[in-house]
C-alpha cells in the first residue's frame, strides 16, 4: 500500500503509447502482431476504406501500449484510398487512431535490400523506428548472414533479430520499444538532391491556405514524387486552381536537372539500401538455385504444376464438404436439444415461439457457417504460410485474366462453391480494391451448398427420371442430373459477363499489376495457422453474426405477427399432453403381463383413441399454422408481391417462401412445408411435400406447378441473393452498406429476369 502513490504517479506520467507495425507482405507481420498482442486484438474497420483495423492493447512493464497493425505494403507511395490509409495513420491524419509514438518496421531478413526500400521511406517520417529483421533462422539457412549490431550502429536505430513464429527475440523487441523516449525522433533520411527539396518548399507554399495547417513534408514529397498517385488526385480535387500546373512545371524542372520523378526515388533509395548493407550482410552468390527454386520448377511445371494444383483444390474442396457436414449436423442436433429443453420448460406461447423459432434458429443460422469457415480458413492459412498461395495465383492468373480478374481471385471464387461466406472473407488476399470488389460481387453467384435442397426438391418433384446413358444397368447420364448440373453452373456462367462488366465499365481504367513477390517455400507454423483461423471465426461470429441473428428475428416476427395464436397454443398444449399420455400408455402396455389380456386390451383401446386424437390435432395444428402464416405480415407481403411474381408463374405461396428465405435459401423448404399445412420440420426429399407441391392449384383449379415453374424457381434461387449471411459479410468486408445493397439489387434483378425467361420460354413448349 505504501508505494501505491508512486505507482499511480508513474502511470499518470507515462501516457498510453501508440505503436504502428508496418512491413512488406510475407514478412511474418501478422505473426509478430499476434505474438506481441497475445492474440487479443480488437478487429474493426477504418472508416471509409475496406482495410481491416487491428488494434492490440497490451501492458508492458506497467506501460499501456496500443499496437496498430497496418496492411502489408512494398512502398508508402499510395495509389488508392486503401493504400493511403497507412500514410494517414503514420502522419496522424486518421482520426480513429492517435499519431503513432513509434513504428515497428518488420523486414524479411533473407531479403533485406528490397525490404529496406519501405524502411527508407519510413525514416523520412521523423517518427522513432525499431527495425525488426524477422525470420533470421530462415535467412541463415539460406546463407544470408547479417551483422545486426553493425547495422544498428550505421543507422543509429535499434535493430532486433526475431523469429516471430516461435516467439524468439520478442523480449528484446519489447525492451527496445520501452526504451524509446517521447519525441526522440531522428532527422529525416533526406536522400534527395537539394533541387528536390527547394521544389518541395515552393509547392508547399502553393498548397498552404490561411485556414489550414501546413501539409506535412512527407505528403508534399509524395505529391511531387507520385506521378498519377492518390496524393496527386486528392490535391487535384481539394486544392485551388493552378496547383496542378505548378506541379507539372516543378516535375519538368526536376527532369531537366537530371532528377526525373518517379525514377529518381527508386534509384536513390535502392542505392542507399545497397550501400548500407554492403559490409553488414553476407549473401550467397547470385543466381544460385535454391531448394525453393527446385520445388517451384515442379509446382509451376506445365503439367505437374496444373495436376498438383487441381488435386490440391479437389482435396481442399472435398475436405470442406466431408468434414463440415458432420459438424453442421452436430450444430443442428445441438440446436434441437436446446429447442427441446426450452419446450419442456416454457408452455406454448409467444415467448416460446420467440426463443425457438427466432432466437435459437437465429443463433443456429450463424453457427452453422462456422465449420465451413474454420475448415476453409485452415487450408487458406496453411497455403499462405507455406508460400503456395502466391503460386496458386501465379498458376491461375492467365485463366482468370480472361474473366477480367487475376489469379488471386481463384481461391475465393472456388471457395464460394462451398459457401460464399468464407469465400468473400478469403478475398482479403487481393490488395487491389476494384479487383477485390469485383470478386466479392460475383462470389455469391457461385452455386453454394445451400442451393442444393431447393434443387433437390424441385428436381425430384418435376423433372422426369429419364436415363440417356446407362453403364451396367446404372444410369450415368440422366435428365435430372443434367438439370442439376445446369443449375449448379448457371451462376458461374453468368458471373463471367458480370465480372467483365464490373471491370470494364464500373471500375474502368484500374489495371491491377501482378508484380508480386513469390516467397520461398517454408513449413507453415501451427501457431500462426491456429491464430488466423481463430481470428477469422471470431470476427465472423461477432461482426457478421449479430446482423445475421437480427435478420432472423425480423423474419420470425414478420411471420408471427399480427395473428391471434391462442387457438394454436391450445392445440399445441393438447398435443403435448396427448404425447405424454401416449408415452405413459406405451410404458404400461410394455409392462403389462401377458395373462392380463383384458387389461391389455383396455390399454390398447385407450392408445388407439389417443393416437387418433394426436393425428387429428397435428393436422389441425398444421392447418392453423398455415392460416397464421397467410395472415401474418409475411403472408400479406406474399399476397402483395403476387402480381409481381405472376409473370414467373408463381402463386403467392411461392412468393411467401421466397421472402421468408431471405435469411437463408434453404428456409424456403420449411416455409413451403408450413404453407402447405405439413408442419415446419420438413426436408427437401419429404414425400408429403413433393406430393403437396405437385397437387397445389390456382383458385381456378389449374395446377400451380409444372416443369417451367419448377425451372423458374430453381433459376431464381441460383441467381438471387437470398442469404443474409452473405450480405452481412459483404457489409463487414467492404465496411459499407452500399455494396451489400448493390449485390442484393443486381442479383435479384438477374434472378427475376432469369426466372421470367425460363418460365415464359418454357411455357412455349407446353
Amino acid at each position, binding site marked *: 500500500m505504501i508505494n501505491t502513490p508512486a505507482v499511480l504517479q508513474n502511470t499518470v506520467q507515462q501516457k498510453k503509447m501508440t505503436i504502428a507495425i508496418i512491413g512488406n507482405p510475407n514478412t511474418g507481420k501478422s505473426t509478430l502482431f499476434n505474438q506481441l498482442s497475445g492474440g487479443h486484438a480488437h478487429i474493426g474497420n477504418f472508416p471509409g476504406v475496406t482495410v481491416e483495423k487491428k488494434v492490440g492493447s497490451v501492458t508492458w512493464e506497467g506501460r499501456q501500449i496500443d499496437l496498430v497493425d497496418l496492411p502489408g505494403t512494398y512502398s508508402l507511395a499510395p495509389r488508392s484510398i486503401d493504400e493511403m490509409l497507412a500514410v494517414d495513420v503514420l502522419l496522424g491524419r486518421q482520426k480513429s487512431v492517435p499519431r503513432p509514438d513509434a513504428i515497428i518496421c518488420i523486414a524479411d531478413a533473407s531479403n533485406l535490400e528490397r525490404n529496406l526500400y519501405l524502411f527508407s521511406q519510413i525514416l523520412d517520417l521523423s517518427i522513432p523506428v525499431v527495425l525488426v529483421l524477422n525470420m533470421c533462422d530462415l535467412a541463415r539457412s539460406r546463407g544470408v548472414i547479417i551483422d545486426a549490431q553493425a547495422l544498428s550502429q550505421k543507422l543509429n536505430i535499434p535493430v532486433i533479430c526475431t523469429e516471430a513464429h516461435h516467439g524468439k527475440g520478442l523480449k528484446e523487441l519489447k525492451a527496445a520499444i520501452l526504451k524509446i523516449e517521447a519525441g526522440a525522433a531522428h532527422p529525416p533520411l533526406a536522400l534527395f538532391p537539394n533541387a528536390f527539396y527547394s521544389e518541395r518548399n515552393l509547392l508547399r507554399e502553393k498548397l498552404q491556405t490561411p485556414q489550414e495547417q501546413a501539409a506535412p513534408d512527407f505528403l508534399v514529397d509524395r505529391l511531387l514524387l507520385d506521378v498519377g498517385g492518390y496524393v496527386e488526385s486528392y490535391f487535384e480535387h481539394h486544392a485551388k486552381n493552378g496547383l496542378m500546373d505548378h506541379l507539372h512545371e516543378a516535375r519538368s524542372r526536376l527532369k531537366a536537372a537530371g532528377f526525373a520523378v518517379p525514377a529518381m526515388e527508386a534509384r536513390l533509395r535502392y542505392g542507399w539500401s545497397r550501400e548500407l548493407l554492403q559490409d553488414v550482410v553476407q549473401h550467397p552468390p547470385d543466381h544460385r538455385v535454391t531448394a525453393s527454386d527446385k520445388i517451384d520448377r515442379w509446382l509451376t511445371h506445365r503439367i505437374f504444376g496444373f495436376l498438383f494444383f487441381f488435386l490440391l483444390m479437389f482435396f481442399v474442396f472435398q475436405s470442406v464438404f466431408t468434414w463440415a457436414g458432420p459438424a453442421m449436423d452436430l450444430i443442428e442436433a445441438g440446436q434441437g436439444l436446446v429447442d427441446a429443453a426450452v419446450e419442456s420448460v416454457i408452455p406454448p406461447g409467444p415467448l416460446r415461439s420467440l426463443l425457438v423459432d427466432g432466437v435459437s434458429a437465429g443463433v443456429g443460422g450463424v453457427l452453422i457457417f462456422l465449420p465451413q469457415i474454420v475448415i476453409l480458413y485452415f487450408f487458406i492459412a496453411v497455403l499462405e504460410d507455406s508460400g503456395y498461395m502466391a503460386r496458386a495465383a501465379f*498458376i491461375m492468373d492467365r485463366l482468370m485474366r480472361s474473366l477480367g480478374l487475376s489469379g488471386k481471385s481463384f481461391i475465393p471464387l472456388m471457395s464460394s462453391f462451398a459457401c460464399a461466406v468464407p469465400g468473400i472473407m478469403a478475398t482479403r488476399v487481393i490488395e487491389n480494391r476494384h479487383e477485390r470488389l469485383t470478386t466479392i460481387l460475383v462470389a455469391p453467384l457461385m452455386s453454394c451448398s445451400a442451393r442444393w435442397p431447393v434443387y433437390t426438391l424441385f428436381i425430384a418433384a418435376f423433372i422426369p427420371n429419364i436415363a440417356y446413358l446407362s453403364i451396367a444397368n446404372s444410369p450415368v447420364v440422366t435428365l435430372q442430373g443434367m438439370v442439376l448440373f445446369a443449375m449448379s453452373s448457371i451462376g458461374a456462367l453468368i458471373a463471367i459477363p458480370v465480372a467483365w462488366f464490373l471491370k470494364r465499365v464500373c471500375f474502368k481504367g484500374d489495371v491491377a499489376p501482378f*508484380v508480386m*513477390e513469390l516467397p520461398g517455400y517454408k513449413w507453415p507454423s501451427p501457431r500462426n495457422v491456429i491464430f488466423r483461423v481463430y481470428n477469422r471465426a471470431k470476427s465472423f461470429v461477432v461482426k457478421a453474426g449479430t446482423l445475421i441473428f437480427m435478420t432472423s428475428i425480423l423474419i420470425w416476427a414478420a411471420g408471427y405477427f399480427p395473428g391471434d395464436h391462442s387457438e394454436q397454443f391450445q392445440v399445441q398444449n393438447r398435443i403435448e399432453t396427448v404425447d405424454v399420455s401416449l408415452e405413459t400408455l406405451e410404458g404400461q402396455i410394455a409392462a403389462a403381463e401377458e395373462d392380463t389380456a383384458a387389461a391389455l386390451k383396455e390399454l390398447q383401446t385407450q392408445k388407439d383413441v389417443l393416437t387418433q386424437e394426436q393425428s387429428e390435432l397435428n393436422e389441425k395444428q398444421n392447418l392453423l399454422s398455415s392460416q397464421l402464416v397467410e395472415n401474418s405480415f409475411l403472408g400479406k407481403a406474399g399476397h402483395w408481391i403476387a402480381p409481381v411474381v405472376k409473370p414467373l408463374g408463381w402463386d403467392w405461396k411461392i412468393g411467401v417462401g421466397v421472402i421468408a428465405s431471405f435469411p437463408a435459401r434453404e428456409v424456403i423448404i420449411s416455409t413451403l412445408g408450413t404453407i402447405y399445412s405439413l408442419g415446419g420440420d420438413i426436408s427437401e426429399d419429404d414425400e408429403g411435400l413433393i406430393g403437396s407441391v405437385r397437387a397445389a392449384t390456382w383458385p381456378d383449379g389449374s395446377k400451380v406447378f409444372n416443369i417451367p415453374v419448377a425451372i423458374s424457381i430453381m433459376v431464381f434461387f441460383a441467381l438471387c441473393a437470398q442469404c443474409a449471411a452473405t450480405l452481412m459479410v459483404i457489409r463487414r468486408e467492404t465496411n459499407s452498406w452500399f455494396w451489400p445493397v448493390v449485390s442484393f439489387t443486381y442479383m435479384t434483378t438477374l434472378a427475376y429476369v432469369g426466372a421470367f425467361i425460363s418460365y415464359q420460354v418454357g411455357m412455349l413448349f407446353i
Partner: protein
Amino acid sequence: MTLNQIVKGQVARITQINGEDAISIRLMEMGLIDGEQIQLLGKAPLGDPLEFAVRGYRLSLRLNEAKCVEVEIV
C-alpha cells in the same frame, strides 16, 4: 530488347523502365532499376506470368508488365 523476350535461365541487365504509369512505378519500387541484373527462372503453366530472380528474391511479372522493362543480355 525487353524482359519478356529473354529465355529461361538467361540473365539480363536492366537498361530502362519504360513509362510513368502505376505498373512502371511498381516495377521500380520492387527494385527493377537500370544496371540491375535479372534472371528468368520459369513460367506459369500457360506461359504467363513469368518468375524472375532479382536482388536475391523471386518476382512474378505478367508478360505485358515484363514488356515495360528494357534489358540487354549479359
